[in-house]
Structure formats: structure tokens, C-alpha cells
């Protein structure tokens, strides 16, 4: 294969089924050049990394930078959204390390476990409300998203009354086909919102992360106001979108595999492994995890030049049969550990303990309280978002 392809395939590429990789990815992964040239929405070239070990390497090797990745997002509106990012997610060590370390203690497994009673209450109220309403219900908007959003509000001290407002603006930033100017406005709106939230919490602190961070970090000058705003804006969106998607689309996967759902009901001990397998199987991040080569480097037999962009997404890594035999099969009894649904390297998801806890409580309660839960439509009629996340748009259910 020559070093430059005259007509590099377009990315993102169409999927035959929303949960399966595009054929482009599977073919590249098995080819002699598993790091393949692709062409983004405006013709910008990028490298698509398709093997698990290569994605792991890109995400953990300091020769690949998290800075400047916005250039390699998948659409004009995604570029507009990411361009404005200034938080530690787009920094490399040692700069990244400084900010990350200021936050770690709030996100440890033990600290997060203290949220369990609040999450239980949130999940149960959401189920109460859904079952008090009419059937069929939309599990996405009536259960999955409210659980994720209310939990984020509880953690950050954001008023849930504002949820429609910030959910809409978060969504615009995630959609692939949004108007770039709207994505930019939405980003600024969220930054301004967080700025006002910090103000309120400084005047009247509560038992929430915004208040703690304002007191611990902002007041002593460990971060600037702009830096805290960027961090909190990140937590606001990351704190509800991804988890809401996993709860909603994850429930769909369970409903599509009734034998495994039944096994889960019989044996609670399968819940942990089932969640890991849902994370692996769905790998909701398919295009937005990008890195930029700092130097010329060889990867997967390909020569990468300094400044080249690489798409190193979980969706590509987690369906590599070298790591996960029969990767396209959903199987809660497989060993899904080693999946990189939460990423890898120093940027691995800070909120993953919260995400796991929310999913555990949500699925546990769903199984217990709605034993008859089932799809209220033909799975072929379901629609999926065209966004940076693989996500079902609505999920009609009955019980």
C-alpha cells in the first residue's frame, strides 16, 4: 500500500447496525495497514486507529498530544464546540497533571460510594414518575436522562429546574449536523451559566462540588476563574450526557437480549460484569477522541508525521477480536475487562466511578421494579442520534 491514498475513505462511515463498527473500520483493522488514512467532513485528513493495542498506545504515549485535537473532530459544529475547550482535557502532562490532581479526591471510588443513597432516591423517584405516567413511555427522556441529569445536579449543586436549558445546549454541542454558530453560542451560554453558578455558590455555599472547588481552588488562587469555569462546564456536560446515554441505550441492549436479561435477574452478581460488557459493546465514543502526533512516529506499520491527527476512539478498540473474541457479540459472561470505553492514558474518565455507580443502581432498580419491562416498538423502528455518541433517540417501553 502506498503511503498516501489518493482517495481516502470518509469518516465517520455508515454503520449497517448502530452497535456494530462500520465496515470501513473492520476492513482496516484486518488489513496490512490497520492505521488507515481517512478524510473528515471538510477533506481534512486524519488517521483512523483500529486495533486495541494501537489505540491504547496513542492514548498513553507522550508522543501523542491532547492539544489541538479540535481540528480533527467529525463535523463543522463539533469543531466549533471543541475549539473553545480550554480545560485540562486538552492539555498534556505536566500541565494536565496539575489540574487533574486538584480534582481526583472528589472522584475516588470510596468518595463516590457516598452518593449511593442520593442516587437510589433519584432512580426510584424517576421510576415512580415514569410508571405513574402513560404507557408506552420514552425511557430515554423519562428515565435515563433524568437519572443522569439529577445526579449531576446533586453532585455539582446545579438546580434541576434548569435541566432542559442546559441539556439542550449540551446536545447542540454533541450533534454532528448542528449549525456551527449555534454550537459556539451553546458553548458560550454554558460557560456564562457556570460563571453565574460559581458566583451564587461563593455568596451562598452548599454541600456540592461547585462550592467546594470555589472555596478550595478559586479562593486560594490555585486556579483562575476562567479555569474553574472551564472545568465545571466540562463536568456539567460530561456528567450527564454519557451516563444518560449508557442507561438508556444500555437498557435497549438488555431488552434485545432477553436470555441475558433473565440471567441478570436470577443472579445479581452478574451486574458488575454486565455493566462492563455494556460499556464495551456500546463504546458510545466513536469519533471524538483524537490526538495529535508531536513528532514523526511509527504506529501499526504506518509512518505518522508531526502534526497529523489520529482518531483513537473506544468504539474502534473495543471491537478488536485480538482482545475480545467474537467482539460483535453481546455477552455478559465474557471477561470485558481491558475495554477502554472510559478511555486510556492520563485522560481516562475522571467520572467513571460515578458512571458505574449510576448504572448499577439504575439497572438494579429497573430489574426489581419493572420485571415486565419490554420494548413497545419494533427495534427496526428505533432512531439513533447523529452525534459524537452512539445513542438511541427515544426508547418506547411498556411494562
Amino acid at each position, binding site marked *: 500500500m502506498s503511503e498516501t491514498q489518493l482517495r481516502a475513505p470518509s469518516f465517520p462511515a455508515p454503520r449497517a447496525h448502530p452497535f456494530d463498527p462500520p465496515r470501513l473500520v473492520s476492513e482496516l483493522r484486518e488489513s496490512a495497514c490497520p492505521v488507515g488514512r481517512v478524510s473528515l467532513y471538510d477533506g481534512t485528513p486524519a488517521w483512523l486507529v483500529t486495533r486495541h493495542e494501537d489505540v491504547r498506545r496513542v*492514548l*498513553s504515549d507522550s508522543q501523542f498530544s491532547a492539544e489541538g485535537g479540535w481540528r480533527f473532530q467529525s463535523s463543522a459544529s463539533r469543531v466549533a464546540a471543541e475549539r473553545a475547550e480550554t480545560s485540562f482535557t486538552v492539555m498534556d502532562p505536566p500541565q494536565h*497533571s496539575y489540574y*487533574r*490532581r486538584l480534582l*481526583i*479526591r*472528589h*472522584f*475516588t*471510588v*470510596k*468518595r463516590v460510594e457516598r452518593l449511593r443513597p442520593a442516587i437510589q432516591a433519584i432512580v426510584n423517584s424517576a421510576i415512580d414518575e415514569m410508571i405513574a405516567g402513560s404507557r408506552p413511555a420514552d425511557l430515554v427522556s423519562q428515565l435515563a436522562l433524568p437519572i443522569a441529569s439529577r445526579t449531576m445536579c446533586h453532585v455539582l449543586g446545579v438546580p434541576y429546574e434548569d435541566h432542559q436549558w442546559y441539556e439542550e445546549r449540551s446536545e447542540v454541542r454533541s450533534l454532528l449536523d448542528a449549525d456551527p454558530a449555534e454550537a459556539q453560542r451553546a458553548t458560550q451560554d454554558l460557560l456564562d451559566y457556570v460563571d453565574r453558578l460559581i458566583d451564587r455558590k461563593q455568596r451562598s455555599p452548599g454541600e456540592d462540588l461547585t462550592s467546594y472547588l470555589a472555596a478550595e481552588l478559586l479562593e486560594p488562587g490555585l486556579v483562575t476563574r476562567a479555569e474553574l469555569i472551564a472545568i465545571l462546564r466540562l463536568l456539567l456536560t460530561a456528567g450527564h450526557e454519557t451516563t444518560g446515554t449508557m442507561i438508556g441505550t444500555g437498557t435497549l441492549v438488555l431488552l434485545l437480549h432477553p436470555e441475558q436479561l433473565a440471567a441478570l435477574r436470577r443472579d445479581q452478581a452478574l451486574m458488575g460484569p454486565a455493566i462492563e460488557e455494556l460499556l464495551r459493546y456500546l463504546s458510545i465514543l466513536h469519533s471524538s477522541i483524537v490526538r495529535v502526533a508531536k513528532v514523526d512516529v511509527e504506529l501499526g506499520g504506518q509512518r505518522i508525521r508531526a502534526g497529523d491527527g489520529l482518531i483513537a476512539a473506544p468504539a474502534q478498540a473495543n471491537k478488536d477480536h485480538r482482545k475480545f473474541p467474537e467482539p460483535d457479540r453481546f455477552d455478559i459472561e465474557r471477561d470485558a*475487562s*481491558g475495554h477502554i470505553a*472510559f*478511555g*486510556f*492514558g*492520563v*485522560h*481516562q*474518565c*475522571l467520572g*467513571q*466511578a460515578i458512571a458505574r455507580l449510576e448504572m448499577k443502581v439504575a439497572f438494579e432498580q429497573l430489574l426489581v421494579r419493572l420485571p415486565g419491562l419490554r420494548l413497545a416498538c419494533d427495534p427496526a423502528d428505533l432512531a439513533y442520534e447523529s452525534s459524537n455518541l452512539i445513542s438511541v433517540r427515544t426508547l418506547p417501553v411498556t411494562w
Partner: protein
Amino acid sequence: MRIRVLRERCVGAGQCVLRAPSLFDQSEDDGMVVVLAQTPSSEDERAAIAALGACPSGTIRLDP
């Protein structure tokens, strides 16, 4: 087998705690890795190896 950690690399992902809760914890003060048992029992050796592989920042080292 002896567990060694390069604490300055830790990013608090908590994978070590998930894989080997009898061997690793996260500090209450700064959230960074704490080694609970420097020499794992033979039953825990597999978990130690799993933790090494799962650590996203290369913080965990195992010496013979």
C-alpha cells in the same frame, strides 16, 4: 512479587481498586494510589497483574 507505585504518575482512575481491592486504595487526602499490601499473597498475584494492566498511567510496577 513486590508492588511498587510511581505515585507521580497516578491520575486517580481507580482501576487498581476495582481489580485488586485488597491490594490498593485511594488516599482520602489527595485521591492518589495507596498500596495496602506490598507483597501480595499468591491468591492476589493475579489481581496485582490485572491492576498493572488496567492502570491507565503506568503507575503500578511489579518487581520479582
